[in-house]
């Protein structure tokens, strides 16, 4: 099941309001995405915790209706 990029971005922003979210549709099929998320909420957290924040924002869709999301996270400069 595919999920529009705008919906992914909205879910992430709802949980991390300061987040700068860049989403790339890797295959052009609305099902394989890469997301780069920049948020101050990641500061001082290990990568696993940063990614878990984003997965939590997606509320269980990751690994389900959202099959393929390559995720990278960063703290604002």
């Amino acid at each position, binding site marked *: 099941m595919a999920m529009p990029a705008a919906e992914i971005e909205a879910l992430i922003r709802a949980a991390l309001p300061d987040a700068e979210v860049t989403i790339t549709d890797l295959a052009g099929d609305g099902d394989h995405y890469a997301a780069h998320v920049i948020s101050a909420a990641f500061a001082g957290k290990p*990568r696993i915790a940063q990614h*878990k924040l984003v997965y939590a924002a997606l509320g269980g869709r990751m*690994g389900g209706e959202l099959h393929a999301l390559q*995720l*990278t996270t960063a703290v604002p400069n």
Partner: protein
Amino acid sequence: MSDTNTRIADIVNTNDVVLFMKGTPLFPQCGFSSRAVAILEHLGVAYESVDVLQDMEVRQGIKAFSEWPTIPQLYVKGEFVGGSDIMMEMYEAGELQQLMADSGVAPAA
């Protein structure tokens, strides 16, 4: 459930480096698993792999075990390291090489 947890704990504690993946290193069944294998091959470390497609209990159980929603999952010395994205980020930053060295992981035979 708790049986599966015990089994998973046993696997990650008795192997220095374990990759839970879809398929096998020779025939990965998913692009993310394939990427994780490629990183481990580049690092040249000895690792064990578990094909979750062969075991539905482990396939579901591993997600609860690590509180991580996706596969592949890498464990080093019993600790969950991350999925293929984190492996790639760490590899590019030189951190995965450092982790393997610090953990005293054996090179691939």
